[in-house]
């Protein structure tokens, strides 16, 4: 047991140590050997420019796929499916779980309405609102109000209250989701519904599904030969309040959506993120969402991956679910809010020690798979933490520390122009991001001025500055905390709407 704790601690230290070693080593190199540092910077800049180009290509592929699949009538296609391994359209149930902390009706009503308006028979749809007890009285009353308002619309509308401070739990969304899922299990048991016939979608309280979401999900679930060995990941977009949000927050969230779209093209690395769906059977077998991890959305994937001996994957759904942009009234509060949200996402690095400890224990997962997956996991967090710092802050250091002699060398002389040229190539991809963002954008609400459309285009000019300051620092922050064993508490991103819908 002691050995396990020790190993886990070592794996907690590795990502932060790797990041800090890289950054400190590069600073030292820039002082001691500016020419070597300059060579590294140029190599990295080139690598980064090509990587950005590659990722943008994947973004275009993903966008085209999204556009193509949007045109499909998923519900019709689901209905037309023959029974596959005991499952068909008519015996597939949808369970939608909303873990609620303190979100109000202004946030929850649009989410429930989106379910209500979706193209899927509501008599096979169960809604579960799992409300945190520590969130206070208001959310619970809101939940009761919603149950009263919508219970006739759905097969069942379950409302439950997740008690605070249960043994083995920390204050995370995962603990609340698990509680809600167990309540659902009781309901399904009472109704004698086979778990494999139930697809559970765990949605953030602000998640509004597209009308075709459940049709698409059902189709893929039924046709997937390993339906219980997969999670189903829609593309998260942040359109709920995008017209009202601050430009800086919009660019960051659009960037997040684009990264998710890109990830759908890289299936070997693809993990669940934010709102996602899976077989209820899988969830029960794997032991529900982790109740002691903040990054429950990705942790459930790794939990399943370990539980099913590596035989687990994520299937991308080219259908969007819309959430709120984390924004505030002022620029500084918006940046702080975004920073905290990104740090929470970056806290997903806690999956690394969890997965590594699991790999050490599980002898049935092939070694190559273990190496590949742990490398991808570590590399993604490592790159997240260092790239922006290298491109913006480390790159000029050889010139600063190199002195006059270094500046007289050809590499010293060429460094600024080559870095700038490679940076400009990377920036060119912003144009593609801008175009895709405009294509994905929901219609402009009538109360939003037309000039906002122009801002939607020009806001992309903020991207380099945002990348420099919000790109890597939250990830370094998260990794450093993990490295020193200062475990983060779950911080709920406050969700409020400008125009409450009651």
């Amino acid at each position, binding site marked *: 047991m002691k050995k396990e704790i020790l190993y886990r601690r070592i794996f907690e230290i590795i990502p932060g140590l790797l990041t800090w070693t890289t950054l400190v080593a590069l600073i030292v190199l820039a002082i001691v050997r500016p020419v070597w540092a*300059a060579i590294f910077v*140029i190599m990295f800049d*080139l690598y980064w420019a*090509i990587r950005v*180009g590659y990722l943008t290509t994947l973004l275009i592929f993903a966008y085209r*796929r999204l556009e193509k699949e949007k045109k499909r009538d998923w519900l019709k296609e689901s209905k037309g499916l023959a029974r596959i391994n005991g499952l068909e359209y008519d015996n597939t149930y949808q369970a939608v779980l909303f873990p609620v902390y303190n979100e109000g009706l202004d946030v929850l009503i649009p989410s429930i309405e989106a379910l209500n308006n979706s193209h899927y028979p509501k008599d096979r749809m169960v809604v579960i609102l799992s409300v945190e007890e520590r969130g206070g009285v208001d959310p619970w009353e809101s939940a009761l109000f919603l149950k009263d308002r919508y219970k006739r619309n759905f097969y069942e509308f379950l409302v439950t209250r997740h008690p605070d401070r249960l043994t083995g739990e920390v204050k995370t969304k995962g603990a609340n989701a698990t509680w809600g899922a167990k309540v659902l299990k009781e309901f399904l048991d009472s109704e004698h519904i086979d778990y494999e016939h139930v697809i559970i979608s765990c949605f953030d309280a602000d998640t509004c599904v597209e009308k075709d979401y459940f049709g698409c999900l059902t189709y893929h679930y039924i046709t997937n030969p390993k339906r219980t060995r997969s999670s189903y990941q829609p593309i998260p977009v942040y359109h709920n309040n995008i017209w009202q949000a601050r430009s800086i927050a919009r660019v960051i969230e659009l960037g997040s959506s684009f990264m998710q779209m890109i990830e759908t093209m890289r299936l070997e690395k693809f993990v669940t993120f934010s709102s996602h769906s899976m077989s209820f059977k899988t969830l029960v077998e794997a032991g529900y969402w982790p109740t002691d991890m903040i990054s429950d959305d990705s942790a459930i994937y790794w939990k399943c991956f370990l539980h099913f001996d590596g035989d687990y994957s994520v299937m991308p759904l080219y259908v969007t679910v819309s959430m709120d942009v984390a924004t505030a009234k002022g620029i500084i509060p918006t940046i702080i809010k975004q920073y905290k949200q990104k740090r929470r996402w970056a806290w997903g690095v806690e999956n690394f020690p969890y997965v590594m400890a699991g790999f050490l224990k599980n002898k049935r997962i092939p070694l190559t798979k273990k190496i590949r997956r742990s490398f991808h996991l570590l590399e993604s967090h490592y790159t997240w933490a260092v790239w922006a710092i290298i491109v913006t802050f480390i790159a000029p250091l050889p010139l600063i520390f190199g002195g006059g002699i270094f500046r007289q*060398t050809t590499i010293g002389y*060429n*460094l600024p122009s080559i870095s700038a040229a490679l940076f400009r190539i990377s920036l060119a991809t912003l144009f593609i991001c801008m175009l895709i963002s405009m294509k994905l954008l929901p219609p402009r609400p009538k109360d939003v001025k037309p000039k906002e459309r122009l801002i939607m285009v020009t806001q992309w000019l903020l991207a380099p500055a945002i990348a420099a300051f919000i790109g890597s620092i939250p990830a370094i922050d998260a990794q450093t905390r993990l490295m020193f064993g200062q475990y983060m508490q779950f911080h709920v991103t406050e969700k409020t709407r400008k125009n409450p819908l009651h």
Partner: protein
Amino acid sequence: MEDKIKRTLSFYFSLALFFLLLPIVLAYSLGYKIDYHALRAYKTGIMYLKSQPPGASVYINGKERKELTPARIEELKPGTYRVDVKRDGFFPWQKELAVRPNMVTKAEDIVLFPLTQEIKKVCDYDVKDFIISDKNYLYYMTSAGLFRSSLDGTNMKRLSSYSDWPEMIVGKKFSPDRDKLLYFNKFHIWVIYMNLDKSLVKGKDSVKVEEVLTSPDPIIDVHWYSESRHIVFVTDKYINVGELSGSEGERNIVILYKFNASPKSLFYDEASDSLYFTDSTSSKDRAYLYRLDLRQNFFDQLMQRLKKEFEIRYEKRDSL
């Protein structure tokens, strides 16, 4: 095409592009030129030329380059090159510049002077002498009086009708408080009092010119004392200090030092009110450097001491 195939192709294309571009970018950055025929790389240097005005043609060993200044000429083999920078209407610039391997040779201070200089007459009067103040004014001593204008000759104003300027002015200096201007020739020192801050009365001169002293010995140099009310003047025999206040006959003039030989060189440091000068010893064959400290305290003490000595002397004379 399947997404997976497209993605795999993109990945390997990017990978290949990286490994293809890496040696090219690194070689370029480090100053190597790749000879693709011989499949080898050799070291080169860069020359950077910046001229004022820009846009000049560059010739390397007599051969014109396509780059115009500011020009970055790359892939030059190490060696010495004759560089000509030319632009129509300007004198050419030429220099031998050495290019070292993997290094940058910079010539950033190339100034091309125009062939035809722009000369503009600033004043139409017969000018005896002139001086530029640090407030960017031109002062002219003319046969028609003392004038002041902006540096380009505009805003000309006659400050005084005084025109009795000496034939040859040896030196001119503004006082530290900028209110006075002294000028001198071999035996005389004049001061122009410029009461510029006072309202000008129509028809009357706004300045006053006064001869403040006449020296029996040839004057070598004159300096303002830092408080602008005394003048330190050096003749070939003495270092003197004279006050400005009072009428001509009552002016105090003190001999601070008597040279053994006429000074070969002297310098007055206004910041420390110190006069540096050379003087010989009695043997007259060697000159030493001396410093006379005229700072306020020292100067006050000296003046008091001298005053006391004078009083004693006068008392003695009276008692005689």
